[in-house]
């Protein structure tokens, strides 16, 4: 599919570095699916859908900065939704979100709660101001917070909040790879799903740029079960734009 012209209808400042861009177009994704957002003349980058018709973006570099310059009435090109989504199962689920990793998990939380599941979220960020979608997770269930600077919740990493004994049917996780690796090491991999981040070029499963071993993040993922990630490249190295191995 060619990109559709998505006109921005609203911009919401979620944190000092994170904004949600709402569009005039709904993409009806499974929670966890992503789109390729084309900021014309600049770059095309992968973004999870945080609502049916919105992406939630952390300003980190060229394309995200260019996007932050756009407002209501401006438009970008959007291809997607691509990839798989999270598979919702069980009665009580645990969400573990680091930073803007909250973007794909928030619609999952809402879907789960609307289906009557019990939802517990562990939400981490650098500081209190950078906590993303806290209200959405709270509306869907209970929330525990960790911040790097201790400005809210526990002082430290969100992984420290993972209860040793509590009984969750499923665990869903998205955040920096190092954090996700720690989660993978700590939980029952058969119960957990992780939304991965790799350099995406084609977005449609052809070029292979996004592979974790033989698995395509853009097409077979971005969501993978913990078992296939165990003993894989995940958490060890990723590939840069050239395809060179880079330690995580």
């Amino acid at each position, binding site marked *: 599919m*060619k990109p559709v*012209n998505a006109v921005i209808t609203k911009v919401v400042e979620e944190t000092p570095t994170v904004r949600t861009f709402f569009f005039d177009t709904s993409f009806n994704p499974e929670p966890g699916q992503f789109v390729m957002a084309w900021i014309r003349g600049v770059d095309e980058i992968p973004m999870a859908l945080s609502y049916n018709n919105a992406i939630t973006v952390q300003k980190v570099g060229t394309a995200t900065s260019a996007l932050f310059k756009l407002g209501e009435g401006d438009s970008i090109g959007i*291809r997607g939704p691509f990839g798989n989504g999270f598979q919702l199962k069980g009665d009580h689920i645990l969400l573990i979100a680091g930073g803007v990793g909250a973007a794909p998990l928030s619609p999952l939380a809402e879907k789960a709660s609307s289906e009557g599941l019990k939802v517990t979220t562990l939400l981490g960020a650098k500081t209190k101001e950078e906590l993303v979608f806290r209200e959405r997770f709270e509306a869907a269930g209970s929330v525990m917070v960790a911040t790097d600077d201790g400005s809210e919740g526990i002082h430290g990493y969100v992984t420290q909040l993972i209860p040793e004994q509590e009984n969750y049917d499923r665990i869903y996780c998205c955040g920096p790879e190092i954090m996700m690796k720690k989660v993978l090491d700590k939980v029952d991999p058969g119960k957990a799903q992780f939304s991965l981040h790799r350099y995406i070029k084609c977005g449609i499963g052809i*070029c*292979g740029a996004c592979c974790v*071993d033989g698995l395509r993040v853009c097409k077979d993922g971005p969501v993978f079960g913990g078992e296939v990630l165990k003993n894989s490249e995940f958490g060890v190295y990723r590939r840069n734009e050239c*395809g060179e191995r880079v330690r995580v």
Partner: protein
Amino acid sequence: MLSLTLTGLKLKNPLLLAAGVMGTTGGSLKRIADNGAAAVITKSLGIEPKTGHANPSMIEVDCGYLNAMGLPNPSYKNFQQEIDIAQDSGVPVIASIFGGCALDFSQIAGTLDADAFELNVSCPHAHGYGADIGTDPNLVEDITVAVKTATDAPVWVKLTPNVTDIKSIGLAAQRGGADAVVAINTVRGMAIDIESGYPLLGNRFGGLSGRAIKPAAIKCVYDLYDALDIPVIGVGGISDWKDAVEFIMAGALAVEIGSAVGNNINIFNDISKGMETFLAKKEWTFNEIYGMAHKI
């Protein structure tokens, strides 16, 4: 029933993974081999690591895909470990290589350990030899000679269809000692976003692959089969077993599959099963259909 020997390589079927598709990591190459490909070809490897063009670098269009990846690759220096992983699958691993001059090509082929080399002589960013090595028969011949000197492995030359006469380029490769030619690389093309006027690719234009280019590819294979004594490997738009049979009838001894892998990672198994059923039903052998369109 579908097994054959191609430039000395024993293949369980005539279906190969095309260069640039799922070819950057040993793991992805191995996955395709495990899913039925008789051999796999790596992403084209150059002298230095390359990031490629800005995104969008690949877009689906009406009847295929436009891409302008810009040859992103980790360079041959970092790639032996990936080839080794791919070879664990047990199938031949062919290194696709590119360069700006004969020396680049021979340096890479002389260093890498692979089961064969495919020379991508249509690099849009070649230095020294200008934009398009693959449109100049003399350069193609020189490069082929240089690589043949640098390695004992079979050497295939992959041709661009964006020339007035592909036969003359194929003949140049043959004169240079190529063991086979591969046709075709992508067809130059472009698409524009009418909502904004922007070209849809970061690089503005790119190469067309997929169903749209099959008739052009079939014609190239047909002409090369007539013109050359070395085998022709067909590629361009194959998405089911019927397409593969069509290429073989046109004169391809084997075929490569690229874009269609995206929507069907199991395409190699599917096509080999489809071909076997077809041949059985028709009571034809592989050899009977090979080049059949020339014989009637």
